[in-house]
Structure formats: structure tokens, C-alpha cells
């Protein structure tokens, strides 16, 4: 180092130290107190978390309840109520060691009995738990001691751990005595979370209040795990169905935070609303949008036709129509943020009109009508439909839109009654549960290897083995085109600039621990 540059270097060093020091008091110093008004786009559907699959219920009640194990920032498994767990060599016994001194909101300590009760409850036919089959391989649950509980499995199924940790439905550990006391219709949910339930006025608000006796876990905030400190006194979730009204409420400062900013409004937020003290954040989630192509219906059963479709579509057009460009192109059922993602999953078809037309000719396609089933419930689904239709028409495919009610679409999806169907999925930390849909479009029947891959992957948590299996699954998708995955969708949220410590979690769940309001 020459002499002349030294003072400059020193000056820079001093400057950066000053900056570092002076920025600390600006960033830190969380303040306790206040109510956070949160604008949500639909109301919760139930306060008993076991009885609904609605993501919004899981998001809200995720402050009241805790899971045995949860998902971390990158959708890995992290300890929550269970401090650690052990899996026997044959995968048939899973033992959970519970955290000591965790209190329910009624003051009772959470014990192994409550855990056993919870997992027995969700498996009984009386409870409308939506993912029973994920837990069907449990043989019995044994309370070893007050803080130890052991699951005996009928067969090896480690995917179950992901189901326990999954975002929605929330597999909340409930208080046995309370549930028994309140009966089947829960009125006052009692959990172990940092906030306790105060009231739910349907379509008006859900109010939560800090649970003063909550003891945060050690470690940094990580997904559902880590340190969860409640700074805010109260959380008030306000359902607002009209998108414009929701934005107006944010502009009027009637809500502090909006969990759903319409994609079409992002530019407006950036250009104009930022000046009014509104902070916008955008992150790519592992949620994906796709079309499913039925492998056994006329016309689309032809592999060459499906490949022609894949060559006909420009992904960017779909991305624009569905999300106004607010997403990351992606090709696979294994999301970009997934622990099992490898660059191999980016392999897919590039738009090539000439190839598409050639394949159509080879397939013997003669202008037969092909239906695209879509629901109007989600604007992005309709956007995909509009784009896919115009792209398919451009190469000469007679694509028609079949717009239907959400309930009918679900029925068509499970009832084998579609040719091309548009859907989107929320984060699937365990790709096994994502590839579940291959059962619905006849893929597994036509290519049984797909079912085997799922079976093999469910039986192991070995990362390398799983990566190899999911790459094989993706190669099968490339070869057979059972679907076309377009993108990983962005999540856009906005809040007043006095809301601090909040950040979007790509998994799509809201988290208000570690968040405070500056006065």
C-alpha cells in the first residue's frame, strides 16, 4: 500500500465506522405497545384451526397456536414445541422431546398428553381435518413421560413430518382440557402462541392480544421457529373484500399493513404512494401457477400435441397476463426456494412456433376444440387462461375457455373432468405432496414410475436421495408434459413507514412477532 492512499483508506474506515455506529440506534430499539391494524382480503373461516384448510386462518391463528415442529425461513424443518426429535433406524418410531414450561393461555402447562390428544383428534372422523390421509400411517401414539411422546408408524412415511410442520391446515397443538370443556364447537381457542385470542367478529375483525407469560425460544427468528417476541399489544385483522377499498384504507391510514397489494397497483404504489409514507415490499414465493394437462382425454392424450403446446407458449406473456410480470419464471413442481431444488429443475421447453406447428401436424391435429377449464375466483388464474388461449390459438390450436365457479373447478379437478385446467399451489416444502396432483390428470396411471418415485421419496429424508428422485420426476415431466409450470409468484405487501421489523415471508404466512410500531 502506497503512502498517499493510506489517509484516504483511513478516512473511509472512519467514515464507515461512524456510519455503522450512527445507524444502529436508527434501526434498533423496538418499542412495546400499540395495536397493529392489518388489512386481510378474506375473513378467517373458523377459529378451530383443525377444521379448515383456509390459509388465512392458519396465518392468523398461527399467532395463537404453535405446531410441534414448524418450517424455517427456507422451508426446512425447525423445532417449535418439540425441542428435538429422533427417528428410529427403520423409520417406524418417531420420538418427540417437548420443550418444558410452555404454557397454554389458560395457564396450564403443555405436556405430552396434549400432543397425543391433538394428533388423535385430527385423525378422528368427527373432526373435519382436511389432510387426514397425511397422518393415516400413524399406528398409535404413546405418552412416554410428561415431556416425551412417541409415534409408532404402520409404514415408513417421513413426509408426515412436513405435514405436521406445514403452513395450512395448521396442525396446532391444542389443550386437551380446554377442548374437552368447550366441546366440539370451539369458542375460545387456547394455544401456546405469543398472542391470545380476544374476539372474532365475523367480517368485521379478529382481535388478538399479547400473551404476557409467553417465553420465546432461543435463537434468531426463523420461519415459525426461533425467537418470537410480541412487541405489539394487539393485533387486529380486518377483512376487506374490495381491493380498491383496501388500498384506500391504507392511504387513509385506517390500516397499518395490507397483506395483499394487487399486482396491477404495484407501479402506482412505487411512484405515488411511497411519497405518502407507504412502504412496499415484494418477494418471490415458492407458490407456483401452472396448467395441468389431462393425459387420457381426447386430443391432449397425444404426447406430440402436448409437446406442441409446450413449444407454443411464451412464458413471459403468461407471466405478464397473470401477475403483471410480478413473478420469477420457473418450470418445475420443486420450487426455487425448496431445499431439494437444483438447477436441473430449470430445464424446460423454449417457445418455438415452427416446432409447435410441426408437432401438431405429426400429431394429426385437425382443429378439434380443446377446453381450458378455469375459475374466475383468482384473477391470476384467469390471466393465465387468457394468455395460454391466445398463445395456443396463435399456432392454430382451437382453444376455448371454460369459465366456471371455483367449486365446480375443484369438482372437475378431482373428478377427472378436464382437458387443460388452470391452478396454482402454495409452497410445498415436501415435493412429494406437490406431485400428488399427478394422480389427478392420469399421469400416474399412464406412467406408474411417477407413483414409485413419490413412494420412495416419502420413505426417506436423505437429501441426496431425494434430490435424485425429484430430478428424475422432473425429467419425466419434460418427457411427457403432464403440466406446464410457468412461474414462482411474487408476494407484494405494503405498510405504513412507522411499522418496523416486518418483512414478507416467502412462504406466504404473516408473522407479527418481532414487529413494532414507532410512535
Amino acid at each position, binding site marked *: 500500500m502506497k503512502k498517499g492512499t493510506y489517509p484516504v483508506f483511513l478516512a473511509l474506515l472512519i467514515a464507515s465506522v461512524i456510519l455503522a455506529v450512527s445507524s444502529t440506534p436508527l434501526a434498533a430499539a423496538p418499542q412495546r405497545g400499540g395495536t397493529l391494524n392489518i388489512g386481510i382480503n378474506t375473513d378467517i373461516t373458523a377459529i378451530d384451526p383443525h377444521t*379448515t384448510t383456509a390459509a388465512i386462518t392458519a396465518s392468523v391463528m398461527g399467532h395463537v397456536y404453535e405446531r410441534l415442529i414448524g418450517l424455517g425461513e427456507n422451508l426446512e424443518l425447525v423445532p417449535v414445541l418439540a425441542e428435538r426429535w429422533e427417528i428410529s433406524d427403520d423409520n417406524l418410531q418417531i420420538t418427540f422431546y417437548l420443550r418444558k414450561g410452555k404454557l397454554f393461555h389458560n395457564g396450564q402447562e403443555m405436556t405430552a398428553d396434549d400432543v397425543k390428544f391433538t394428533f388423535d383428534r385430527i385423525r378422528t372422523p368427527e373432526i373435519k381435518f382436511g389432510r387426514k390421509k397425511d397422518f393415516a400411517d400413524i399406528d398409535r401414539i404413546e405418552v412416554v413421560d410428561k415431556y416425551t411422546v412417541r409415534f409408532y408408524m404402520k409404514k415408513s412415511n417421513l413426509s408426515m413430518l412436513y405435514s405436521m410442520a406445514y403452513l395450512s391446515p395448521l396442525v396446532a397443538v391444542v389443550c386437551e382440557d380446554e377442548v374437552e370443556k368447550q366441546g366440539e*364447537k370451539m369458542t375460545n381457542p387456547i394455544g401456546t402462541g405469543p398472542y391470545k385470542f380476544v374476539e372474532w367478529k*365475523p367480517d368485521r375483525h379478529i382481535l388478538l392480544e399479547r400473551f404476557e407469560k409467553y417465553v420465546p425460544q432461543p435463537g434468531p427468528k426463523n420461519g415459525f421457529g426461533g425467537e418470537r417476541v410480541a412487541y405489539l399489544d394487539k393485533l387486529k385483522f380486518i377483512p376487506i373484500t374490495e381491493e*380498491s377499498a383496501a388500498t384506500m384504507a391504507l392511504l387513509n391510514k385506517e390500516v397499518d399493513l395490507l397483506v395483499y397489494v394487487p399486482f396491477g397497483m404495484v407501479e402506482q404504489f412505487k411512484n405515488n404512494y411511497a411519497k405518502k409514507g407507504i412502504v412496499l415490499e415484494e418477494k418471490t414465493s415458492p407458490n407456483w401457477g401452472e396448467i395441468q394437462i389431462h393425459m387420457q382425454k381426447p386430443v391432449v392424450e397425444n404426447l406430440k400435441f402436448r409437446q406442441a403446446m409446450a413449444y407454443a407458449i411464451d412464458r413471459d406473456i403468461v407471466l405478464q397476463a397473470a401477475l403483471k410480470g410480478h413473478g420469477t419464471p420457473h418450470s418445475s413442481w420443486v420450487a426455487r426456494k425448496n431445499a431439494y431444488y437444483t438447477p436441473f429443475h430449470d430445464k424446460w421447453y423454449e417457445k418455438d412456433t415452427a416446432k409447435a406447428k410441426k408437432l401438431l401436424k405429426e400429431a394429426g391435429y385437425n382443429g378439434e376444440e380443446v377446453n381450458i377449464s378455469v375459475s374466475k375466483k383468482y384473477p391470476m388464474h384467469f390471466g393465465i387462461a387468457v394468455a395460454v388461449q391466445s398463445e395456443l390459438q396463435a399456432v392454430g390450436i382451437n382453444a376455448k375457455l371454460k369459465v366456471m*365457479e371455483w367449486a365446480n373447478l375443484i369438482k372437475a379437478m378431482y373428478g377427472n373432468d378436464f382437458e387443460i385446467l388452470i391452478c396454482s399451489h402454495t409452497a410445498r416444502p415436501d415435493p412429494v405432496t406437490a406431485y400428488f396432483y399427478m394422480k389427478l390428470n392420469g399421469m400416474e396411471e399412464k406412467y406408474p414410475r411417477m407413483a414409485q418415485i413419490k413412494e420412495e421419496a416419502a420413505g426417506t429424508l436423505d437429501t441426496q436421495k431425494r434430490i435424485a428422485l425429484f430430478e428424475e420426476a422432473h425429467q419425466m415431466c419434460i418427457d411427457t408434459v403432464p403440466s406446464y409450470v410457468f412461474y414462482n409468484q411474487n408476494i407484494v405487501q405494503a405498510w405504513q413507514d412507522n411499522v418496523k421489523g416486518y418483512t414478507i415471508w416467502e412462504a406466504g404466512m404473516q408473522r407479527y412477532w418481532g414487529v413494532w410500531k414507532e410512535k
Partner: protein
Amino acid sequence: MLNYSIRRLLYFIPTLFIVAFMVFFLVRLIPGDPIQVMLGDGANPETIAAVREKMGLDRPLPIQFGIWLGSVVKGDFGTSIQTNRPVLQSIRERFPVTITLTTLALLFSLLLSIPTGMLAAVYRNTGKDYFFMLLTILGVSAPVFWLGLLSLLVFSVKLGWFPSIGFVPIWEDFWTGLTYLILPAVTLALHMAAVVARMTRSSMLEVLRLEYITHARAKGLGEGKVLIKHALKNAFGPTLTTIGIQYGQLLGGAVITESVFSLPGLGRYVMVSIHARDYPAVQGCILFMALIYVVINLVVDLMYTYFDPRIEYN
């Protein structure tokens, strides 16, 4: 007159039965599997079958109707599939919202329409008449949800006079509650105001030509007194019937207004339930709204006797 009232009440029963019948079968015809929607992706067939059996949805329709009607008469509207709460409890929570909204809208629309209608009648076929009528007709001509959103934009965001979302019951805090309800109630009132203004105008015109008005004028009564004491009272009869019928429009309009202004009323509940295929909730809610409407019309009919003694009751 008592006879008339009793007969009117007796007619009530078959009508109600048909209403209940229509509600039940209409709702049951709604396609889509409520259980599948409720349980979402990946529910297994056994769970679905179990839930269906538990809710009695696997029985033949006429039996389901019988059971349902029996329990409705006893005041049990069933349990919501979606929220697992008693439907009647949800209705009870939301009914006050809708009734305050519609009553307030009724008040606003009368305040707007009766003076307008009277003035238009008095200044018949002049520029003033045309102006008032055009104004009221404009109110009835724009889509409600569009008017609602525009009024939110102007009065809530630009002027900041009213909150844009939320609801505080006026029985908890009258003035605050009112600020939340004024915009939606006025939006809702415009439609009815137009209709009632036109009705008032034409019945006023009719009454103003009658002899006793000329007589009253000849007696030297002030024009204002003639208008209000004599003309309005007699013109109010037909207007009142219109109000009864129009109340149905308000209840129907509430379905839209409550969604625009995020009010937790019955109308929003109907829509949420329809989209969720929540049979018991949709049934209970539509039936209840029809009931309110029928009762209000009954009351109006009976009140009519007071305002128009010329009516015969046989």
C-alpha cells in the same frame, strides 16, 4: 278492518311455506360439492363421505327438506359448513348491521325524495320539475357498486370526511357508528329515493286536483299547510306501498353495498356463503331476508289502512 288484517296474516302462511320450499331446493341445486370445497385439496374420500353423512347430506332431498323445515320452525337454522357455528347465531350478529344500514338508507331516501317529489309536483312541467326529476333519475341510473366506489374515492380518500372501511355498531357508539354508515346508506338510498320521489310526485299531482284541496285553498289556508297537512297525508298512501316494495330493493342492494364498504352484514354473509357452497348458511340467510321483507310489507299493508281510509276490506 280487523278481518282484513287476520286474512292478510292467514295468507302469510302458505306464502311462507312456498318461500321456504323455494329456498331449500334452489340452494340444493347449487352445483359443486360443499364438502370438497370445505376440506380443500387432498381430502380423502373417506373423510368426505364421513362428513357428508354427519351433515345429513347423503339422505334423499324430500327428507332433508322435512328435517330442515322442522328445525327452522323451531328456530334452528342449522350449522354452517364453513365456520361450524350455528347459522342463526351468525344471522343474529349480522342482522342488526343490515337493518341499521337499510333503515338509515330508508330515512335518507325519504328525506331526499319526499320534498323533491312534492316540489316537482307543485312546479309541474316547469324547468324546476325537470331538474328535480332528472336529478333523481340520475341517482337510479348508475350501478350501485360504481357509485359506492366513487363516493369512497371522493368523500373518504380525497376529502377525508368518512372512514373507508370498518364498522362500529351505532348502539355502541352512535356518532362514530354513524360516520361508518353514512356513505353506504346514502349510496344505497339513491335508488330508492328516485323511485319514491317519482311516486310522491304523481300521487301529489293526483291529490292536488281533488276538490277538498281546492276547498282548503279557498278557505284561505296557507299553501304550505295545504300541501303538508292535506295533500301529503293523502298522497302518502301510495307512496307508503312503494316504500314497502322498495325496502326489498334496499335489502337486495345491501348485498352489494356491504361488499363495497366492508360492512359485516347479512348481504356479505350471503355472498361469502354462496361462494363457499355453505348450504345451511345460504338457506338460512336468504330465508331470513325474505322473512324480513314479507314482514315489512305486511306492516306496510296494515299501516296503509291508516293513510288511505278509502280502501275497503272485504
